[in-house]
Structures are given as structure tokens and as C-alpha cells.
């Protein structure tokens, strides 16, 4: 049984955070990559659960894991990613009981309204243009090879797209799986860049 206490105010000390990094690395020094990977997966997990504060909930999950590590020295109940998932489930269930969950649901209703019930506004036009402009600016910040990979990977539809990706992987001398990861990372990077340029942080 995993004991996950609710201590939102607790912030990890430097040594506690270092202990978390070491535990996630499981003996290898990944230079923080494992931490970033598991945090990214947790953010996406909470997003798929339609949590508004997915970033905060991912941090809360990892804070709780760090706290447990600091208190007990080690965690042997489960592998690192497995344990993080167990804690994340508790954090998610707790978030559902929070008062603002109701207002979140209400504020999200507009997104699922039928198309005919939503009006177009000039703000939408403006934001579309700003998004495209931000994307084009962010594309120029990528290395030419990365920009080419990004645009080539997401070009086309269905069979044409699949054929294109296989050919691209062949040209670059990497597996399709490795290519997918590179393309997804680049897309994440571009999305983050666009978000920053639009001031959405």
C-alpha cells in the first residue's frame, strides 16, 4: 500500500530534489533528462484528464515523491515511473474534490458547444493570424535541418505521410521510432516557442 499524504505546501529542499533526480536515474546520470521526461508524461496525463492545472499537478506529484524519498530514504514499492503514476492518480482524485473543479467544468462547456451555437469574433481572426505569424517566427529559430525535419515529418496525409516518414527515416539513417521522438520533441519545442511569443507562458 502506498501512503500518499496531502501536503501541498511542502517544497523539496535542494537535497530532496537531488535525491529525487538520483532515484529517477536509477544509478545512471541522465543530467536531469529522466526528471524532465517523467514530468512531461505527468503533465500530459493530467491534461488528458482535462485538468486545468496540469503543470501544477505534475509538480505536486513529484514533490510528494521527493518528500517520501526524503522521509524514507528509498522507495521499493514500485519502479520509479510506476510509483509516480500511483501518486499521480491520488493527486488527480484529490483534484476532483476541489471546489474549483466545478467552475472549471463550467468554463469548459463552451469548448464543447455545437459549432452552430458559437459565434465568430474578430478576436478569433486576430489570434489565428498571430498564431501563424508566431509559428513562422519560431520556425526561423530552429536549425535548418530541424526545420526541414519538422515540416517534412508533418507533411501529407495518410499513406502519403507514412511513406514520407519512412523515406525520411531512411535518409537520416535512423529508425522510424527515433524519428518520431525527434519530430515530437521539435513540435513540443515549437509549440512552447509559439506560446511564449503569444505571451501565454
Amino acid at each position: 500500500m502506498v501512503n500518499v499524504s496531502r501536503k501541498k505546501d511542502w517544497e523539496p529542499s535542494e537535497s530532496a530534489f537531488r535525491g529525487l533526480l538520483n532515484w529517477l536515474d536509477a544509478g545512471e546520470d541522465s543530467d536531469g533528462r529522466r526528471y524532465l521526461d517523467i514530468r512531461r508524461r505527468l503533465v500530459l496525463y493530467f491534461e488528458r484528464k482535462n485538468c486545468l492545472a496540469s503543470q501544477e499537478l505534475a509538480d505536486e506529484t513529484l514533490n510528494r515523491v521527493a518528500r517520501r524519498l526524503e522521509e524514507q530514504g528509498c522507495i521499493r514499492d514500485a519502479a520509479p515511473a510506476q510509483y509516480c503514476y500511483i501518486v499521480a492518480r491520488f493527486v488527480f482524485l484529490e483534484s476532483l474534490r476541489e471546489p474549483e473543479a466545478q467552475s472549471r467544468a463550467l468554463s469548459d462547456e463552451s469548448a464543447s458547444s455545437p459549432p452552430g451555437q458559437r459565434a465568430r469574433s474578430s478576436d478569433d481572426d486576430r489570434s489565428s493570424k498571430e498564431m501563424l505569424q508566431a509559428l513562422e517566427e519560431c520556425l526561423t529559430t530552429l536549425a535548418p535541418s530541424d526545420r526541414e525535419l519538422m515540416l517534412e515529418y508533418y507533411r501529407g496525409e495518410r499513406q502519403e505521410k507514412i511513406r514520407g516518414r519512412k523515406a525520411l527515416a531512411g535518409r537520416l539513417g535512423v529508425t522510424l521510432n527515433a524519428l518520431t521522438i525527434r519530430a515530437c520533441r521539435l513540435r513540443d519545442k515549437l509549440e512552447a516557442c509559439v506560446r511564449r511569443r503569444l505571451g501565454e507562458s
Partner: protein
Amino acid sequence: MSGNAELDPQLLVRYLLGAASEEESARLDELSVTDEELAWRLRDAENDLLDAYARGDLSPDELRNFSAAYLASPARRHRAAFARALQNHQLGTAATEDPSRDTKRASSAKLSRTLVFRWLGSPAFAAVSMLLIAGATYLFVDNSRLRHQLQESERIQASLKAERARFETQLGTQQPHDIGSSLPSSKAVGALAVPSFFLRPSGRDAAGIPQLILPRGARNVRLSLKLEVNDFSRYQAMLLDPAGLHQLWRSAPGPAKTEGRERVFTFTVPGTMFAPGRYVFELNGLSTQSSPEPVGTFPFAVVVK
């Protein structure tokens, strides 16, 4: 290495759309955190789903689930808007390429894929269609100038008439659907006033969405939507932005009519409604007894030249 390589890609899509079973969802919830490879596959499937949404390629069921389940969070709506921007960037890149030059270069395959290959899958047809697209677009955009030149020079007139007759003959022998709706009808080429397009409802087996090439400054665009059912006395079409799900314009209600062997609903849209990008027409059947009933969705892309 993941032990989940056998996972059905369609299961990932169902999961992302909130349409997987409870058991499947619980399993994928866990794997999305604990299995690195599966996490990336899921991310990749999500990006492809977003791109399909931005292109207007989702089936009506998928679109409903996507709107209700996927777009429920601001972060995901931002991602959908990003996907649309990426699609528009890709479309813009394709539209600015010069087809006549590209046909002579090894890189011509890129434009062929974008504009033609999706419809026919045949290099021979792609080449023919490329010529048609280039010719029809040229006739549209340069109509006024050409008419002036035709009056002044018999030689140019003869040449252009011959060229035009050739294109019209080719257009006339093609079934409108064989080349999607990427070209205006031959009637429109002759009239050079209101470009006309024929659209079929979207289907899962469709090779891609039609691309409408509009002359810059077109005042009106005439659309004919093919009816798969003819159960209503009147119909109404709504123009939607697929990324924002916003209604941009709606037609006046009216009856369907017969064109050739097809039942169609025809209407005219102000040309100012169309910027380059993706759109969807949603066609509703109207009756006095009940509320409007969706009878078809018609995704398409607009390229302005």
C-alpha cells in the same frame, strides 16, 4: 523496449477521443506514464489527430468526440490552434510553389503530392491534372489582361483560344469528381465570373479533402454540395472554421435540385469569406416538424492564386 508494440493505433485514437472502454482507458492511463515508448507513440498519435482535425479530415463521429472530449481543456485548444497554424503554413508553402517550374525538377513530386497525387495516385493523372490546374488558374487570374491582348493581336488571340479550347475539352471529358474539386467547372472557366465547385460529403475512405483554387479577388463562389439523402424539402449550408468550430457564414434555406444524375444543394458564398486555409461546410436538412438535422459535412481547403 516496450512490450506494447502490438497496441492498435486505432485504440490510441479512441483513447485520445475519450471513446475507449474504461478498462482500455485505465491501462493506457498507466502506460502513458510508465512506458516511455508508448508515451511517445501516444504523443505522435495525438499530433496526427490534431493535424487531421485541422485539415478537416475527421469523420462526423470523430469530430463530435474530438470537440466534446479533446477540446475540453485550454491547453488542448491551444494545441489545436497550433495544428491549424502548422497546416496553414504547409498549405501556404505548397501554394507558393511554381508548378510549371516544379514539373521540370526532381522536387516536383512535392507539389504533385500536395495538389494532385492524393486524388488519383497515378503519376500520369498527376501530370495531366498539373497542367489543368496551371492552365485554369492562369485563365482565371489573367482573364482581363488576356482579353485585352486578344483584341489587339490576332496571333495571341488564336493561340489563347486554341489553348482555352484544349483545356475546356479536357475539363469536359473529366468527371468533376475525378479531380476532386480542385478546379472550377468548365462553365466557370468560360464565364470567368463566378467560380463553381462541386463537393462530396466527407468519408473515411476519402483520399484527401478537395482543394479549391480561387482567383484572387473573386467576388462570389458557387458551391454545389452532393446530397446522399434527399429526405428534406429544404436545406441550409453553414461554413465552419474546423479548428475553432466557429460558424463563419450560412446560406439561405432552399430546395435541392438535380444536376446530371446528382441531387445537389447549390448556393453562392461571398468570396471575401475565404482566406487560404481549411474549412468545412455542414449541410442541414430543414423541415417544419423538427429542428435542423445534419445530413453531411464537406471539408475542403482554399488556395488563393
